[in-house]
């Protein structure tokens, strides 16, 4: 794949957003932007599709609710029904009110943890994972945009970046992690 990219550094989020919009207007696609903090509207400006993590969380919550219901039905009703205070022990529904706290807690437990695990896996975050931001300043106060270029458009893209306030522009040859970045 395209093994040459431009790295443009921006010093401010407003300048970055302008540049992203200018590039998108000219139909150039942006590989990646590395930011030190969440820039509002950047994902829309880059044309990133929305994330579906909230939906997964809802589904995980349903799983948690189902697991807790199954668990307590098995433990309290089927496997070892106990006579506690003379309350009926042969029907889940009639016993359900005192199971509500745990049904709630397990719903939250599943929804929260499984969503976060999904997030970590999708964004490739885990201990001992090597960081992939190309410039260490991007966690401080600089913004780095990466764009794949070919022989014919490299100068044109560089000009757009330059006009829109990129403070540094660099051509990166044969970037090794390039393919991995594009797949993402």
């Amino acid at each position: 794949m395209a093994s040459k990219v431009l790295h443009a550094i921006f010093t401010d989020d407003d300048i970055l957003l302008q540049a992203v919009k200018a590039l998108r207007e000219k139909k150039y696609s942006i590989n990646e932007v590395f930011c030190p903090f969440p820039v509002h509207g950047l994902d829309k400006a880059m044309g990133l599709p929305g994330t579906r993590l909230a939906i997964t969380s809802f589904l995980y919550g349903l799983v948690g609710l189902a697991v807790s219901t199954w668990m307590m039905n098995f433990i309290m009703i089927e496997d070892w029904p106990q006579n506690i205070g003379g309350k009926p022990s042969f029907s889940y529904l009639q016993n359900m009110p005192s199971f509500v706290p745990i049904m709630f807690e397990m719903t939250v437990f599943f929804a929260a943890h499984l969503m976060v695990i999904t997030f970590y896996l999708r964004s490739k975050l885990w201990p001992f994972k090597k960081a992939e931001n190309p410039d260490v300043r991007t966690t401080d106060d600089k913004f780095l945009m990466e764009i794949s270029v070919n022989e014919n458009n490299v100068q044109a893209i560089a000009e757009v970046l330059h006009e829109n306030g990129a403070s540094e522009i660099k051509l990166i040859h044969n970037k090794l992690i390039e393919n991995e970045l594009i797949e993402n």
Partner: protein
Amino acid sequence: MSHYESPIRRPLVTGDKSYNDVTLDVVRPVEGKANKSWWVVFSIALIAFLWGLGCIVYTVSEGIGTWGLNKTIGWAWDITNFVWWVGIGHAGTLISAVLLLFRQKWRMAINRSAEAMTIFSVIQAGLFPIIHMGRPWLAYWVLPIPNQFGSLWVNFNSPLLWDVFAISTYLSVSLVFWWTGLLPDFAMIRDRAVKPFQKHIYGILSFGWSGRAKDWQRFEEVSLVLAGLATPLVLSVHTIVSFDFATAVIPGWHTTIFPPYFVAGAVFSGFAMVNTLLIIMRKVSNLENYITIQHIELMNIVIMITGSIVGVAYITELFMAWYSGVEYEQYAFLNRATGPYWWAYLLMMTCNVVSPQFMWFPRLRRSIMFSFFISIVVNVGMWFERFVIIVTSLHRDYMPSAWTMFSPTFVEIGIFVGTIGFFFVLFLLYARTFPVIAQAEVKSILKTSGEKYKKIRAEKGDDAKLYLEPEQDPLPNFKEQFNSNSNS
């Protein structure tokens, strides 16, 4: 790209801070060396912790008879301390979750430390029931696993078991919420680190965070959903803690007002503890520009409101005891206020209901010394609230022959002091190694709420440019570079 915020709102970040300044200010305590006072406080906390550890070992090896408990007051100080610590553990998630849902930007300067406080205090809380079991190595018996006696299970009708689930869910979800927010800030420290060892450690801690646009999009969504999940969770935890009492038949305990009353009390004591810690931390770590007087004032207002809710609950309890017509109930409350433990009741009322009312005065709630003083008073008062609820409700049993008083032994005092020490050991270590302010989030509100940018807008109008024009070098010929095959 409008960063407009009404000029009537006071800035949340004072001083002319740029993005880079935020980085430098947050990283300074981590990169710098600890000063003498840190070591002094840390040593005291460590000694207290070790003393407490000794008392725990003594308790476990000798049995809980080493405490001052008796057959009437079987819960000793232990559950008082448990409820006190769990209550303190409520502010962190309240600040980071509830205030996130309400889009309160002032939470960003304090949420990291408040959540750290939450996690550390829930750890303290969790110790107490485990010690109270007498045989802590069998603590796993509270889990729903088949045991060696056959398939006898835990009892899911018991509020004590609900507590196990509520507190472990709360602790683990808070931890994950906190850590996810920490990733970009650990990454910032990692990328600044010069020593290989530190770079490696913060590299592990940051989970390889790179700050891609997609990561940030997911990060924000995850934070929002976690906030939505943590909000009912935080309310459920102290609700369930209150069920430990409310579902009992002891007069003074079995009241339906307990859940909201406990939750308000938890928020009250949690915010007081946040104030105690942050008033010290902003000074020691030079963070006065981020944790401003306004932050302290807003927390004081929360303390005032929740303190008043707690006051209403106390009075409602008294009224309902009389109105119920149940003589046991009436006696329980009469005895609480005028019996041998009247002094504890008076302390509770003064500290929790009267003292927050001073916060109606703007001069007082903007005074740092006074806020600090009140935060300590509230913490003391909330400890006595739990003492009053537990000990005075129990000490006059149904049979007068069982009536008794309670006094703690050095062992349980030692354990309580030890948990305070443990808490401060954890918090002081945190303050030296963690980014104590969610710097990425603060940067994202800097242009709307930072003093520097508010000034620019005030001078040059709301559409003023909030950045300096970048310095640019002339554009090289990239086409030529493209065809030469060497990295420039």
